[in-house]
């Protein structure tokens, strides 16, 4: 995967590793909370990146899975079950519902699929809001406990952060492995040209369904971690607006770039929080963000992580044209030489 040149990639990896490992030691509670929030959105948008960026399925229903994951854990824990049952249950339920949501994608694509998934998100959100016996309605579910692992409590923000970090790393590793396997190529083939893919034996039906289901699992796990992080959930964070925001995070970071969600989630959830206390900026963050997205879509439709590729392409084009000029010059000199 060509992201940056190797030296720069190493520098960024080391800096990034230092940041995520050491930063919590120097941050106050809220800072740690915010970093955890960021990691959770990285997990969710990694899944969405698989669905949109790699498999090319335009989904606007991702927040529904995020919510299903959160409510699954919250409801099960309220019923007295452990978080460690809730987490895999959230993943499994999202996998199943994700498969089902994949079916419309077999019939419709692009904007029509986006609307179908948006409708699905609205339906799930209405269940969360109206089925009070199950979800607590608009009052939500509060006092969701954080889990303990091998007797070690994750109640405090710092240990919970490291727990979420480990989950993020495991899920990134799994996705990386999946995308490097033949599955990664099949998903990309489905995105680039489904008709050709099918004619070459790619089972586009299975890969379409699985791109939704696996993406949904990531959202479900993220939702489960989210419920335990915020310890109080209500329907608002899982509405259609959140799905659109997640879609934006994928696009801003760079759809189909493995590290896109890291950048996208930072821009989508961390930056606005950071800038909240900056006078002037705070009131204008959303309009500024909106304007920035418009500018980005015009100038960098492939997202922020496409910048290195852009620079490299431009350099290659410049070198090629310089080489042509030199070649033309040499040829001209030769002609002159031959003539004289």
């Amino acid at each position, binding site marked *: 995967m060509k992201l940056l040149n190797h030296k720069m990639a190493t520098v960024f990896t080391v800096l990034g590793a230092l940041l995520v490992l050491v930063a919590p030691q120097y941050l106050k509670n809220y800072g740690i909370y915010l970093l955890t929030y960021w990691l959770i959105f990285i997990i969710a948008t990694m899944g969405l990146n698989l669905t949109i960026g790699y498999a090319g399925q335009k989904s606007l229903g991702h927040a529904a899975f995020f919510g299903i994951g959160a409510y699954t854990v919250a409801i099960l824990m309220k019923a007295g079950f452990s978080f460690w049952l809730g987490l895999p249950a959230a993943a499994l339920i999202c996998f199943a519902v994700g498969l089902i949501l994949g079916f419309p994608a077999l019939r419709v694509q692009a904007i029509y699929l986006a609307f179908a998934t948006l409708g699905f998100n609205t339906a799930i959100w209405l269940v969360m809001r109206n089925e009070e016996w199950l979800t607590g309605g608009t009052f939500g579910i509060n006092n969701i406990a954080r889990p303990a692992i091998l007797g070690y409590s994750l109640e405090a923000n710092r240990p919970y952060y490291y727990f979420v970090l480990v989950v993020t790393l495991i899920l990134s590793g799994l996705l990386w492995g999946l995308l490097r396997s033949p599955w990664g190529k099949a998903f990309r083939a489905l995105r*680039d040209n489904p008709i050709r*893919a099918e004619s*070459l034996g790619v*089972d586009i039906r299975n890969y379409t369904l699985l791109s939704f289901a696996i993406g949904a699992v990531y959202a479900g796990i993220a939702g489960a971690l989210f419920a335990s992080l915020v310890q109080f959930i209500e329907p608002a964070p899982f509405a259609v607006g959140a799905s659109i925001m997640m879609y934006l995070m994928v696009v801003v970071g760079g759809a189909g770039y493995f590290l896109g969600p890291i950048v996208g989630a930072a821009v989508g959830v961390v930056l606005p929080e950071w800038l909240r206390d900056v006078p002037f900026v705070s009131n204008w963050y959303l309009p500024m963000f909106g304007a920035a997205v418009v500018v980005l879509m015009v100038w960098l439709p492939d997202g922020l992580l496409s910048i290195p590729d852009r620079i490299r392409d431009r350099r290659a084009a410049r070198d090629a044209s310089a080489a042509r000029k030199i070649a033309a010059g040499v040829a001209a000199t030769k002609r002159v030489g031959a003539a004289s």
Partner: protein
Amino acid sequence: MTNPVLKVTDLKKSYGAIQAVGGVSFEVMPGEIFGVIGPNGSGKTTMFNSVLGQISPDAGAIELNGKNITGLSPLELSRRGVGRTFQTLQVFGKMTVRDNLIVAAQEHKGSMLSRMFSPGDSGLGAKADALIDQFRIRHVAGKPAGTLSYGQQKLVDIAMAFMAEPDLVLLDEPCAGVNPSLVGGISSLLKELNQNPKFGRKGSFVVIEHNMDFVMDLCHRIMVMVEGRVLAIGTPAEIRGNKEVLDAYLGN
């Protein structure tokens, strides 16, 4: 007598009142390059799409190696060893040329589950490289296919159809839009692939093409279609000498 690879019997397809294909029958023998020519609207593409499962014919039977494949989906046909190219360019634009070739055959190896744990190139790297060299596209092998010139993409497009070593390949206008200097190149590539000893057998192709020199030079037998019917089937020499064909299509 050897059995045909492809046997089409009395194929019919209508769109409303218009009969696009009205009872077409032909056989393609193993190792044969079978050309299909005819004016626009003569039903070539409808016949092609019926054989390839893109549309379902109203009547008739299609057999591959003696087995009925009528109405099978493109996916099933690919699994049974039918490769194809399309009239227009159909490559995976954002994937590299090499990955385009690998993905063109990977789904024929193992099960979906086993492929989850297979190496990225599915063990097809060497084969992809061999085709890349044969098609002389080594210098662009690492580039996204969508960034290539039209002619280069056409070569990638054709190479992809051969990655999975299909029993039968249907090529829909392999020379459409191609620079005349490349037409000869494509012709010799197809002749090479037809003879390819690495295949373990000769390749069997069906080729739709408007470029008459190309068809006459490449194909062993040619079928002429006019208004949804077969006007004649024969060797290039026979077709050239057929008076009906001359009147209806080739002109003087």
